[in-house]
């Protein structure tokens, strides 16, 4: 785990990319469905309450989110115990814990962007689709998503970057096990703590490289959308 030539540990890169990739698939689907569910509610009070719950992981300190996750998935907690006895799976301090932590923390970004994008879609399109006989699920897939796509994509990219950068909740639920749960952000912290600034800097540049690329790709996509729409 030192930066002396070939001793540099590359597993955090692999673990982080694997975590972020699995996370974005789960977050993308959950965020879209949550946004659609809220969008389809009529009661403003209900919307407000659930919007608050869905947004909470974004505004809470990640360690607080991590604390709650430990209370749910910890080895001695009901759900943690259930997974252990039913499937022999230990969630806390395993690779799956890095995914769970990243999903919970990145979910609000996806949800909020998707909801904002749905709200921008002309409601007459939805009404028209209903009079034409389309089911709500059909409208979701063929009218809402395509017409809200730019906002959904930008939510997805931001959620991906956020999932990749997740530290606090990951450290709480997944810990810092080399080759198993040590993600890039956790590795940066560990190397700094052990005084190995060179290794820390290496991980830092990898993170910056990935996140910067993601945001540039997003900007290129949005430029493409703007051009396509302006004929």
């Amino acid at each position, binding site marked *: 785990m030192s930066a002396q030539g070939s001793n540099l540990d590359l597993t955090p890169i692999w673990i982080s990319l694997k975590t972020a990739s699995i996370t974005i698939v789960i977050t993308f689907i959950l965020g879209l469905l949550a946004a659609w569910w809220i969008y389809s509610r009529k009661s403003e009070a209900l919307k407000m309450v659930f919007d608050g719950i869905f947004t909470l992981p974004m505004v809470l300190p990640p360690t607080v989110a991590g604390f709650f996750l430990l209370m749910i998935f910890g080895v001695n907690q009901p759900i943690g115990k259930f997974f252990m006895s039913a499937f022999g799976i230990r969630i806390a301090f395993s690779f799956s814990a890095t995914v769970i932590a990243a999903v919970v923390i990145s979910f609000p970004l996806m949800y909020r962007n998707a909801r904002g994008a749905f709200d921008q879609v002309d409601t007459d399109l939805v009404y028209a*689709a209903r009079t034409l006989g389309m*089911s709500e699920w059909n409208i979701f897939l063929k009218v809402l998503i*395509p017409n809200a796509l730019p906002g959904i994509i930008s939510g997805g990219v931001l959620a991906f970057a956020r999932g990749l950068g997740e530290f606090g909740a990951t450290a709480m639920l997944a810990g810092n096990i080399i080759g198993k749960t040590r993600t890039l952000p956790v590795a940066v912290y560990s190397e700094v703590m052990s005084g190995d600034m060179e290794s820390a800097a290496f991980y830092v540049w990898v993170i910056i490289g990935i996140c910067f690329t993601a945001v540039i790709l997003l900007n290129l996509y949005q430029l493409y959308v703007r051009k396509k729409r302006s004929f």
Partner: protein
Amino acid sequence: MLEVQIYKKLAEFDLDVSFQVHDNISGLMGASGSGKSMTLKCIAGIETPDQGRIVLNDRVLFDSEKKINVPIQKRNVGYMFQSYALFPNMDVYENISVGLRARKVNDVDIVVRKVMKQFQISELASRYPKQLSGGQRQRVALARLMAYEPDVLLLDEPFSALDEDLKEDLLRELKSELQISKPVVFVSHNEEEVSELCDFKYKIKLGEIV
């Protein structure tokens, strides 16, 4: 025949209308914000009245006393929106076929081609709404709803998005296309349009027919 009897509390006033439309074109005329669009939306099922009864050809669509409220998808109404509400992500062909597929109509392709021919938009099949003129959009919107043979046509200010000089031709065109022996409700704030197009007219003011 369409029988409408609606009561609905709105922010500014109470909507309280009742009228009948036989198989003709009836105009619902009034200033903007008089409740005419809301009336159409109640017939279509987009909005729900507080009280009342809506019957279309012996089929009860809404009855507050009997707690009947047929969902929009099952009402078989044709609704033309002020903005036409064509799906921007679909070309003309898809705009027309998507509803037919949802309704599990047989031979969707044949029906779409037939209706496109009837409305003279065949050559626009692969164009997107953005690439159409106002008049073309109106024709596509009409073709899209005529394709599934609705039991009633609800037209919400279909000329407000068009240039004045186009309007007269399109008005005449629409009149000939609407000779379909089905109830048609045409909503407009424009007296000329209503007199030109409609067999009957109702004036609506602050939620009441006058």
